[in-house]
């Protein structure tokens, strides 16, 4: 069960809009061709699963959403994301994980979260990605406030998996 080598896990919090595809491509400053995996020392994994979540255009009240405010607990949020990703990566035996999450005031259509997993097999890549997404929704300290009609409402709980 022991991992001889720690699994590379990259966690990012973004205070402004971020482009998930640019992060997957390795970021604007990355001169390597291996994308986000290459930046973590892994070239062209056989299986890669991604999930991108974006801000909806409608508030829970049904009205148009003006903005989604994301509060976090600086320090603890990053540590929790690292710990959740490491545990999930080790449980599924994957090769690398990238988690990016928005904080601050986001507008409809902007990216909220990106989870990317590289692995040798499609099953672990997909399962690790799905589980990590659920884990971070419940175990990483983020709080959403929906702004609609000039009023802010704290979201208690997550959107159902559906």
């Amino acid at each position, binding site marked *: 069960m022991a991992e001889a080598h720690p699994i590379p896990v990259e966690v990012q919090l973004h205070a402004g809009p971020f482009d998930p595809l640019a992060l997957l491509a390795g970021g604007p400053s990355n001169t390597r061709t291996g994308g986000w995996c290459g930046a973590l020392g892994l070239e062209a994994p056989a299986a890669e699963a991604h999930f991108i*979540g974006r801000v909806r255009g409608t508030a829970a009240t049904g009205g148009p959403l003006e903005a989604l405010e*994301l*509060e*976090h*607990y600086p*320090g*603890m949020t990053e*540590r929790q994301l690292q710990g959740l990703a490491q545990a999930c990566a080790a449980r599924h035996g994957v090769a690398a994980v990238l988690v990016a*999450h928005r904080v601050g005031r986001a507008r409809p259509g902007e990216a*909220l*979260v990106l989870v990317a997993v590289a692995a040798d097999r499609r099953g672990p890549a997909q399962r690790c990605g799905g589980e990590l*997404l659920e884990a*971070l*929704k*419940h*175990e*990483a*300290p*983020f*709080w*959403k*406030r929906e702004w609609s009609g000039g009023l802010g409402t*704290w*979201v*208690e*709980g*997550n959107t159902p998996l559906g």
Partner: protein
Amino acid sequence: MSRAIGAAHGAEAGLTIQVRLFASLREHAGWDARRLALAAGTTPERVWRELGLGGGAIPATVRVAVNQAFASPHQPLAAGDELAFLPPISGG
């Protein structure tokens, strides 16, 4: 009888902690961080009650973190601890 909480500057040295509130809890309380001096053995549950953060005991939906890790509401606090009360998480 014995109050568990005093003003930080008035209590014995070494039992001062930091309390942090987030999101709806922060807004309801009207503050986000406080330094407190505690009696030895004070728990997060007792801090919640003494600060009058609402509902008597800590509500089931509120989670406790000590030094930025989830913790039991009944774990005695130590000097220098950072105690946080976290309303329901809604990330991702």
